[in-house]
């Protein structure tokens, strides 16, 4: 392989993949663009996913445990109260009034609450082990991929259609598998329908109990419409902010989506946690969204709006811009964005074709490596460089958290940002993580081998020199992992 081909292979691994790992340069061969495209034809199958619960099953498991916790807590609380009453001295009304009645009651309440909490804590939360297994599966997929372009696309779309495990931990990993991974190389409209109709998203964006004012349930109750999901779908998932939709569009669309909810877990041990359209919550009648009338009577109404949003030209531009910003440059070249948006429009949102359009464009390769890898990419990159294939999910998710990108826990529906300014101040923390990681793996990784074999020596001479002069192998590895060549792409 010529030096320029090697350089392009290394760039392909950093910019579009999960970073170099043993054998990846050879796997790419002389045609990096072709290799990236070829990987999209054979994305990884996660065989271990067969052992993991579906989102509905995971949700039921956690709901069951919660129900048992509540029952146990209630029981304990009642018992504690009974004991206190039996032990309390009998006071006259006057005495009680003069001796600080409220204080005494407060103490009783505290003791009962503590008893309740202890009883509840005795039943462990099954959500965390599920989350950790899912984290392990996802991370090991990133380590196993030859290049990792398809995995990077899964990560991108997962962040675009993010939910938060802080609110719905049980489903967080299964959501990604069921809604995102299954559609990341398909058509955008299918991805959109899968994501917005997924119980995890409906839970996260507060749609479960959203009801139309004139729905059967709405007439009888004081509760009503929740606009959250309708707004975020238009602002974040499809059209993009300030693209012409109005507050009325948001309200109409929110009405359209009333009734999109899930089967209550307690009510149905087999289907609890699955998507269901509940007509009792649904606002009857037609709605106008973005000037178009939707007269459908059920979930089809929402699907029709989503299909039109997916086909909207603003969505093509929004999605193309975000993709190019993530992979290529914080301020992506307009020509590249337009090329990708055009492909999106021409192929009715075929996401694989959009990805191919990106890596086929010279613009995507010509940009200087100025993107700062997000913490997740960077950590996976270190593990890949070391040849690690098995992940301790506690350690890995802990590291992600320290670096400010806890897995599946963005602080807002916008997901994690993709620009250098958001992440660069965290570089100091990366040094601690790199130093610690280097200490752990110093026996199994040779920095010179990483530079020569994995990076095909395509690394700044200053880095080679710093690595060569390091006082220990640990320091050499830490410097290598912290180098701009390793953190930027």
């Amino acid at each position: 392989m010529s030096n320029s081909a090697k350089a392009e292979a290394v760039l392909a691994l950093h910019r579009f993949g999960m970073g170099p790992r043993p054998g990846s340069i050879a796997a790419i061969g002389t045609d990096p663009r072709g290799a990236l495209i070829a990987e999209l034809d054979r994305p990884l199958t996660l065989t271990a996913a067969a052992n993991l619960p579906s989102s509905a099953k995971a949700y039921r498991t956690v709901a069951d445990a919660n129900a048992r916790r509540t029952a146990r807590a209630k029981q304990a609380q009642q018992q504690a109260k009974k004991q206190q009453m039996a032990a309390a001295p009998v006071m006259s009304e006057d005495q009680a009034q003069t001796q600080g009645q409220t204080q005494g009651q407060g103490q009783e309440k505290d003791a009962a609450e503590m008893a309740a909490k202890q009883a509840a804590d005795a039943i462990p939360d099954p959500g965390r082990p599920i989350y950790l297994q899912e984290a392990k599966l996802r991370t090991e997929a990133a380590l196993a991929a030859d290049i990792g372009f398809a995995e990077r696309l899964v990560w991108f779309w997962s962040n675009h259609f993010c939910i938060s495990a802080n609110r719905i931990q049980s489903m967080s990993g299964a959501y990604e598998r069921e809604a995102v991974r299954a559609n990341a190389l398909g058509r955008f409209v299918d991805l959109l329908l899968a994501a917005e109709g997924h119980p995890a998203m409906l839970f996260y964006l507060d749609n479960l109990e959203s009801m139309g004012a004139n729905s059967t349930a709405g007439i009888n109750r004081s509760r009503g419409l929740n606009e959250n999901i309708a707004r975020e779908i238009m602002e974040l998932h499809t059209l993009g902010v300030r693209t012409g939709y109005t507050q009325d569009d948001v309200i109409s669309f929110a009405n359209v989506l009333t009734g999109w909810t899930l089967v209550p877990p307690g009510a149905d041990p087999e289907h609890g946690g699955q998507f269901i359209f509940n007509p009792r919550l649904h606002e009857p009648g037609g709605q106008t969204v973005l000037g178009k009338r939707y007269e459908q009577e059920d979930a089809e109404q929402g699907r029709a709006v989503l299909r039109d949003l997916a086909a909207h030209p603003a969505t093509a531009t929004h999605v193309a811009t975000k993709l190019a910003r993530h992979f290529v440059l914080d301020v992506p070249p307009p020509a590249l964005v337009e090329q990708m948006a055009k492909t999106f429009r021409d192929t009715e949102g075929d996401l694989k074709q959009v990805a191919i359009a990106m890596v086929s464009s010279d613009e995507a390769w010509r940009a200087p490596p100025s993107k700062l890898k997000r913490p997740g990419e960077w950590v996976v990159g270190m593990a890949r460089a070391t040849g690690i294939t098995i992940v301790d999910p506690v350690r890995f998710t802990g590291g992600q958290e320290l670096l400010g990108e806890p897995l599946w826990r963005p602080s807002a529906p916008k997901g994690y940002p993709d620009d250098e300014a958001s992440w660069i101040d965290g570089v100091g923390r990366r040094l601690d993580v790199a130093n610690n990681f280097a200490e752990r793996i110093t026996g199994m990784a040779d920095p010179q081998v990483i530079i020569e074999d994995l990076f095909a020596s395509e690394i700044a001479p200053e880095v080679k020199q710093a690595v060569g002069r390091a006082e220990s192998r640990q320091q050499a590895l830490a410097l290598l992992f912290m180098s701009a060549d390793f953190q930027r792409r």
Partner: protein
Amino acid sequence: MGVVNHLPTRRELLVGSSALFAWSQMPRIARAEGRDPRLLVIVLRGALDGLGAVAPVGDPDWLSLRGDRALVLDGKTPALPLDAFFALNPAMPNLHRLYKGGKAAIVHAIATPYRERSHFDGQDVLESGLVKPGMTSSGWLNRALLALESGGRVDPRGSRALGIGSVTPLVVRGSAPVMTWVPQKLLPASEDTQNRLLDLYQHTDPKLATVLQARMKLASLGGAPGTGDAMSDDPTLMPPGIARVRAYFAEAAGTAARYLAKPDGPRVGAMGFVGWDTHIAEGAASGQLYNLLGALDGAFAAIESNMGAAWQETVVAVVTEFGRTARINGTQGTDHGTGTVAFLIGGALTGGRVIADWPGLKPAQLFEDRDLKPTTDLRAVLKGLLRDHLRVEERVLADAVFPGSADVKPMGGLVG
């Protein structure tokens, strides 16, 4: 805690006979004398500047060699006098106290047989006990342990040797079972690593350099020791400062001592401390090296107190792969050299002296006109300790523990 190399069959045989365990973990001959010796080896990775740690203040060429970077008895931070000729770095009051009490010795102008200047190879020779690098994957301390059991039998519980850190130091690796303990605290990136990274960024990525510089500034403002960074929301990842290094050294060394002190615990241990490669702004009297030596001194105090009664039967050997240039370089630091010091502390020592066949500091007296010339072979010291403290036979020391060292006689009289 991970324990490797189980020998289940023999373990099954011995289940329930805990007294036998306790005996079998003791070095064989020492036990016959009713002793129960402990040995802890601390490797200072990066090459310690022996002259910055123990200064030859009585040498007429000392001041001209190091100039205003020379440790002196009447400086701003005065060195601590050891004898008429040597003085100790002021960051090490504990070591000074131990020395005055006869429980510490210092060997100066010492080196392994390695005469090149690569850290990795130098550490390999230091820890493998062989004359050349890259020849074995076992360390001299592990082989010494093997030799203590007749017929090479090893303890079935696998707990005779202790390694501290997530990577077992080579010196204690080998076929004798090793248990390892990993400190819970994240080892902070050393000041040296940060300086190197900053230098790298300044040449390759100015934006990253700015960020790193800001962080280093914040760390240097510091807080009280142990309190870390008030601006950080995460107590486990404070910005690296000397307080964290001190805490790490003390925790790691103190834990090693606790295990070694246990009646049924391991009897030898090894650990490594990084950060001694002081090319830039060495700061023997008040900077980098001063801080690191202070942290090491704190580790000594932690060992002494955690050893409890076992301190009387303890020797701690502190060694490094090589020394540094005798002269200060162009960046107020020192480069890779040859001769350096070794610290020996412990209740079992016959200390209170600096052992040195002093080579002098005139240009012609320096090794290759740049380094302190080594006049004592580190293996002589280590062989002396292994022979007189653990009772490893001299023949075994020359053949198996330090192969090819028959002409390096064990140094006598170190323990008493």
